[in-house]
């Protein structure tokens, strides 16, 4: 089978790219291992809602159509939203088609799937950055009496034995899972490393409204000081609760969650060892939040929004007990379960083109994989902008990368049978 472009993955990124390729009359297919929005459908917990408000989902050619713009989608609603988008795009989808290998030859690319082989001039990797749970090495030292599961395996508290739970990681997933498990009557210890604290609403608006309006989400990858750090920053400690409440370490402490430092090791006696750095990671998060709010206030003043918005506000520092515990005996039966909410890594095991760095990430310049002309990456954190991994953010990246892709196809010797007319962007 032959086409000009193979797009791998039918989440928001693959569909947005399909929309732009269609606009540019570029022949393509979108391959999906499962159904549309597969990760959203199968690899997240039951109560999860998107961290972004409904209105913040402006995809190319589509956007929110409901009557609750400030609400947060449940996962079934997210899947339905992306299914409708696929219809709008009329994406040339091949679902239940798993890519097993991508190779580059002198002339083109070969995309091997469990349903046949595609040859194409360009490949867009839109498989997301959150494929495999990233579990720390210390996991291998956890006593076998303890059940362990990753954030992709966790569904709801009823799945867990009664008894204590250690949640490792306090970004969006870990904080929400800790909240839900503690409320189910199990006592939760939360191991806290570096995290990003933000209020859900600020001065009467959603924090992401401010970041969008002030242009913070539009900051470009080639304009930030340290793009490697920016791409590795943990997800905001946010939740899309229906009541709009803020989740942070103080709210978790208030319902009885016990905070400890980053899980640093498990010693020979089966005791978990926590870092003594809890106070500092909390101080860092508090200071960074204040910096963000200061910049929002400055922007609001410059933009004449001071009168329309509620008064500026500052939040209580994260409360840390005088001497947080450094050890937790995992052999005494107090902890029954450990949930790893320690982030994700992408899975490029099928990509047989030598473009991965030592950490297993694709080397790229704003999504253009320069070492392999015709290969593109889309939808990963801060790919081209701070918002690149948001549903709302992928459209601008897809527009720019599809323009680059179109001109790449145009420059190639005429082996494609298709007429290529790049649009101005």
């Amino acid at each position, binding site marked *: 089978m032959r086409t000009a472009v193979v797009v791998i993955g039918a989440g928001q990124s693959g569909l947005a790219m399909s929309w732009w390729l269609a606009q540019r009359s570029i022949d393509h297919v979108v391959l999906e291992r499962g159904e549309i929005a597969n990760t959203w459908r199968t690899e997240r917990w039951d109560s999860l809602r998107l961290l972004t408000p409904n209105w913040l989902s402006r995809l190319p050619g589509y956007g929110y159509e409901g009557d609750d713009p400030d609400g947060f989608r449940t996962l079934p609603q997210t899947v339905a939203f992306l299914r409708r988008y696929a219809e709008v795009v009329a994406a040339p989808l091949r679902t239940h088609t798993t890519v097993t290998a991508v190779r580059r030859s002198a002339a083109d690319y070969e995309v091997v799937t469990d349903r046949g082989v595609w040859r194409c001039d360009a490949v867009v990797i839109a498989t997301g950055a959150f494929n495999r749970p990233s579990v720390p090495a210390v996991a291998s030292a956890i006593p076998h009496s303890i059940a362990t599961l990753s954030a992709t395996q966790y569904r709801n508290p009823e799945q867990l034995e009664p008894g204590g739970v250690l949640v490792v990681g306090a970004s969006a997933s870990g904080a929400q899972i800790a909240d839900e498990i503690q409320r189910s009557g199990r006592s939760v210890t939360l191991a806290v490393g*570096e995290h990003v604290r933000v209020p859900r609403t600020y001065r009467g608006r959603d924090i992401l409204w401010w970041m969008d309006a002030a242009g913070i989400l539009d900051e470009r990858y080639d304009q930030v000081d340290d793009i490697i750090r920016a791409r590795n920053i943990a997800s905001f400690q946010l939740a899309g609760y229906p009541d709009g409440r803020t989740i942070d370490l103080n709210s978790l402490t208030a319902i009885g969650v016990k905070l400890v*430092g*980053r899980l*640093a*090791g498990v*010693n020979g006696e089966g005791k978990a*060892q926590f*870092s*003594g*750095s809890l106070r*500092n990671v909390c*101080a*860092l998060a508090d*200071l960074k939040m*204040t*910096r963000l709010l200061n910049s929002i206030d400055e922007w609001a003043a410059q933009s004449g929004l001071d009168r329309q918005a509620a008064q500026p506000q500052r939040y209580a520092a994260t409360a840390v007990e005088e*001497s947080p515990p450094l050890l937790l005996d995992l052999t005494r039966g107090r902890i029954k379960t450990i949930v790893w909410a320690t982030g994700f890594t992408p899975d490029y095991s099928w990509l047989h083109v030598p473009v991965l760095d*030592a950490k297993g990430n694709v080397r790229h310049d704003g999504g253009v994989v320069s070492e392999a002309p015709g290969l593109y990456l889309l939808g990963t954190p801060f790919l081209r902008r701070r918002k690149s991994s948001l549903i709302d953010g992928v459209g601008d990246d897809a527009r720019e990368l599809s323009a680059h892709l179109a001109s790449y196809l145009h420059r190639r010797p005429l082996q494609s049978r298709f007429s290529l007319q790049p649009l101005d962007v």
Partner: protein
Amino acid sequence: MTAATIEKPVDNGVNVEALFGAREALTKSPEAAKFKWRASVKWVNGTHSRTTIDSFYGLGAEQKHKSQFTFDADHPEVFASEDKGATPVELVLAGLASCLTAGVAAVAQARNIQLRSVTASLEAGMDIRGILGADTDVRNGFDGVKVTYHIDADASPDDIKALVAQSQKRSAVYDIITNPTNVTVEVK
């Protein structure tokens, strides 16, 4: 940038360009980033010992300090010792203090903040029943370390707090004290 900083560039005596250059170079050649730090010690008498430091390994080669440094350590008279040097645990505090303070200067330079004075006092609690073996529930080491900085700099109080927080984030000795480390002691 204010007029004052244009006239007088921020100078905390830290070569930040070299540090950022090294970070970039070492990202590309991680082998050169592997250092070995060394010390050798000789027992003098009683609890008194003398540690000598002169060489280390890094950037793919043996390196030497400009001169040899020696550190006498002993225990105080209340421990029935002769007090010929600082107590080893105090040397640990010295390491933490120096590491964090170097970090404050480097981060300030990188953030274009002029320091005028930086002082800190450190205090670590310890229940000596641990080291005496009098109570096995008491650990040998510190039960906590408190560091208090006083910093005079051209920056807001929050920016100064952020300097100290970032310095902890990047400090080797802070990491060594707050996280476990495998220690192998052999006799040959």
